[in-house]
């Protein structure tokens, strides 16, 4: 199944790459300068949202250092902490910050906390079928569509007619696609759009972001959410309105100003002893990711590059500046 997911993912990448949206990368970023003495193997286990991007990064990193081996596995953010703790992976890509209990069990084993590195900006996108006339949804409406608790006080929304669509759409129920609970996207959407309410039992849980997009593409009356990096030509990312009621498109400018209400960072967690330096294999990987080359990969995959100021902060955190 993973292989199929990767296949679909690769398809998604090629499509989103062709329909590339103009993304600016801060001119202060400099190209990556390779050094010597980098070899060995790395394993990354974690987020599915970051899966394609991790693959891109590791391929390009290996182009710099042909002796390096990197294996990437992406089943969901929640798979990252157990693997980092057990030592089966060296990199833990996650689309949400670690939970307290996860940090605890890491600390229990190593004595210090894992280091969080922000590597990309994602606007979590709400996808509908490409023929859907809907243009904008508010967070409250999303809560009414996806949540059974509806803690934001919204009314239950079950058909497209409830969202104001007419004609053949009016009577059709909204078919909902979402991620499985291992996903950080699942948790983030729950937190921000549903005020930590519970998902409706009828939201179809998909094992990967590409499966969500695939599901929406194949079902005319569907709606689903996933990272913007998985956008294809068959689906449409609609605008989302935040607290102020302004419809905002999921683009770079709105992600950076925070106007798009479901914007988030994507992270890679790493096991770094605070009193010693990071080994060159992982150190150079992060230096690569947070360089011009790495951030070009980020925008190629459909996500938004890290703001330069923050990228420098992260390098400082890793002792790489």
């Amino acid at each position, binding site marked *: 199944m993973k292989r199929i997911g990767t296949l679909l993912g690769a398809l998604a990448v090629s499509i989103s790459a062709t329909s590339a949206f103009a993304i600016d990368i801060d001119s202060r970023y400099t190209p990556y300068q390779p050094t010597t003495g980098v070899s060995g193997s790395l394993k990354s286990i974690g987020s599915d949202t970051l899966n394609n991007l991790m693959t891109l990064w590791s391929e390009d990193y290996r182009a710099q250092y042909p002796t390096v081996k990197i294996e990437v596995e992406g089943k969901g953010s929640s798979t990252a902490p157990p693997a980092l703790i057990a030592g089966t992976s060296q990199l833990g890509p996650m689309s949400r910050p670690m939970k307290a209990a996860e940090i605890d069990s890491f600390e229990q084993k190593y004595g210090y906390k894992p280091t969080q590195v922000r590597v990309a900006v994602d606007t979590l996108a709400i996808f509908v079928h490409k023929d859907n006339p809907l243009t904008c949804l508010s967070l409250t409406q999303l809560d009414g569509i996806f949540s059974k608790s509806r803690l934001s006080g919204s009314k239950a929304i079950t058909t497209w007619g409830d969202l104001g669509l007419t004609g053949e759409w009016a009577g059709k129920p909204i078919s909902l696609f979402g991620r499985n609970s291992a996903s950080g996207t699942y948790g983030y959407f729950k937190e921000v759009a549903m005020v930590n309410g519970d998902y409706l039992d009828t939201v179809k849980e998909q094992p990967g972001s590409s499966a969500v997009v695939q599901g929406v593409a194949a079902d005319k009356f569907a709606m689903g959410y996933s990272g913007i990096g998985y956008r294809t030509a068959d689906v449409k990312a609609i605008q989302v309105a935040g607290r102020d009621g302004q419809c905002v498109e999921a683009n770079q400018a709105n992600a*950076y100003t925070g106007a798009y209400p479901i914007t988030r960072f994507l992270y890679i967690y790493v096991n770094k002893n605070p009193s010693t330096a990071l080994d060159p294999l992982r150190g150079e990987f992060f230096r690569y990711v947070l360089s011009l080359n790495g951030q070009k990969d980020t925008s190629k995959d459909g996500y938004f590059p890290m703001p330069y100021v923050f990228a420098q902060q992260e390098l400082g955190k890793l002792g790489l500046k």
Partner: protein
Amino acid sequence: MTDATMPDAPTPDGMRRSVVYRRDKKTKSSVLLADKLAGRIITIGGFFVILTVFAIMLFLVWVAVPLFGSGTASDATRYKLDLTGEHVISTSVDEYRTLGLELSQDGKLTAFHVPSGRRISGLAFDFANAPGANANANTGTGAAAAPTAFARTLQGDDVAFGFPDGTVRLGSLAIDSAIVPAAALPANVTTLPGGDRTDGVAIYLNVAGKQVRRLQPAVKLEASAQVAPQGTPIRFLDYRVGGTEERPVKTFASIDEKGTARLSSAYAQVNMMTGETSTTISNTEVPTGLNVADIASVLLNTSGDRLLVATNDGMVHRFDTRDPAHARLAETEQLLPAGVKPTAIAYLNGENSLIVAGADKSLSIWSQIDRKSQKTADGNVLTKIHDFGPQPAPIEHLAVSQRTRLFIGADARGEVALYHATTERRVLTFPSGGKLSPVATLILAPRDNGALAIGKDGEVRNWSFDVPHPETTIASLFGKVWYEGYPAPGYTWQSTSGTDSAEPKLSLVPLIFGTIKGAIYSLVFAVPIALLAAIYTAEFMHFRVRAVVKPVMELMASLPSVVIGFVVALVLSPIVENWIAAIVIAFGVIPLTLIGLAFLWQLLPQPVALRLDGIPKLIAFFLAMVLGIWAAMQLGPLVERGFFGGDFKAWTSGSGSAAPFIFLLLLPLSFIAVFSFGGRLLGASWRDRLRSKPYHVAGAYELGRWLGLTIAAFALAALAATILGGAGFDARGGIVDTYIQRNTLIASFGMAFAVIPIIYSIAEDALGAVPEHLRSASLGCGATKWQTAAWVILPTAGSGIFSAIMIGLGRAVGETMIVVMATGNTPILDWSLFNGLRALSANINVELPEAVKDSSLYRTLFLCGLVLFVMTFVLNTLAEIVRQRFRKRAAQL
């Protein structure tokens, strides 16, 4: 072997015989040894199989059992802190339970080493002298008025103080933790009991490697903000910090001396391009109309859209502040019997439930539930969802967990107990280890592993406890639980979320239900097809065709289920969705076409029919099948337009009349009724008349009779459906409901594809194993092939067929990948064919990779495995018992 016969007749020539043919009549010892060895190896192998199965079960039990343990608490470590003359208002403890902080009302902090009670130098909030201090504050003398109100967030790091002059100051009170190299340890450290070290300012803990962890208290106080009019003291305060790390939102609610409530919030927005933070502060008044003397406490939630004011008569007033400019009273609810004073009120983690303790010794949990009530402004009502029953004494202090639904309460006597909200139980009572003394403040350690109670006399009681799985009990896993925000108690599976504040919902009932639902529906499709196919192949099919068909069917079984699941989910489900009406009627049209063709076949003259037997006949049936599918596709839209209002999917959501679907459901029953009745009515005399006719003419009569009975069956079903539909029966809400693209129908198709070859293969073998003499005897007595198959072969092979179905059922129960991919994994509890399910096996597959080892979810997933194991074990044992009984009967033949 031992008495091998001689090929040659015995000859007198004994010599020759002995040379050439002489054989030992004893079995060779090597053969005996091999025999014995093989016997032993097989016995040992069998023993190991049984052992392995038991070992797996034991392992599952081993992992799952701790879910039901209640946990332990240590005896209290007691010591006394000298807090003379101080009015303690709050306590903090770091996550390592090493450094404790006491905050007294004048802003003074006492820092102490938690395990020993040794004091280290404290800090203080300097209310008098801080940047931007209010002009009216007495800055010159350095002595400002003591705060009149205090609040802290659940995490305890953020605090707010209200002052007599109507100002509020926000601040933070944190215990900073950092890892430093051991070499950086200050020179003047002294060792504390237990091995920790201190330099009087910070505490140093040893951690692995040559490094130490430094814990140090840190305070910060922001500039004061004038909230209430000048000179109006702030009486009540509550403070929350929410939003994301990048965009914190600070909200606080205050009530001043005059009873005016205000809601203030600071909304920070970070520009990622520049890294700058801009803060917007809003301040609005909430009209409460309450007298300040009646107010017991005020509670705010993190998003700042709900404000609760509890009063001393046991009432709570809920204000809707979603639109701060138009804050309104949403509801007034009596939480405690009239006149009973609330002794402690607090939000549980997640702020969707309220813990209410009253002077009448009651303790209960309340949650805001959407009841569409007319009595409240927004339809929501605060409802009591858990009641802990009367406690030994009124609970006066509460402290809640930052991660789970645990909380601790200290009663008026000073006894401290641990409670869990979701499972509604007093988990344990902390041993006091001496005389009880009334409690001044109470704190639950951030990692839910310890508690600290500070007595009014400065006596500290420090406990550590270990309650690893508070959220699981037999009742919560298998019974109905009233979760916060839910309209009624129910069975829900919603195990995790991205944050700690969600209430985990671990009911196995929807999963067990999903497993059974998936297995039953897939067998409904698989069993008739597989059995009829097996009977046809074994009893009717030409042996040359059979030689091809059987291996092909068995090839089907070798398809990996993930491939089936993938094809079904991505290719079949959109097709089925587009053609749903055609597919529903195909269940009737295809069998009718096939039976129709069988009657038409009888019209052929006998020699022609005999010549075309075998491959041509099979091809004809195949064509009839195609014809049936084509007919269903043509009829589908017509039927949809004629009976389902033009849109079958819209019909499933509740539009249109119920009768047409009941008609479809009743059709098979009606057929059985009409044909058994018609067979009896037109029995012997009909057959006598047929006998006198030529073969193909008799066929025409039979065709005519079949057509007549079919029309009668349709009419009967239509009549019954009209009556039932008129009487209000409706399949919707039962076995059909709103159509969803990934559904049980689709999954059942996929599962049937996986199950059919198994049932078919075993059943066909069982039929083939029926002794040939039974078949010959039956045919010889003049029975037709069909009569022989139905009344002789089938009953004899009953045990084999039963085990075929049972093995198929076992496969369907344990099937994972098809269910994962085709159903959408929705943990719902209804029988509808048109929505999804979440099976135990699929659930394990989806959630195990994310489960932290030994967490409640991890163990619950192992419990899922155990339940699945027990289900298949019981099923197989039952099947075996029934099979043995069948076999005994068959053996008598």
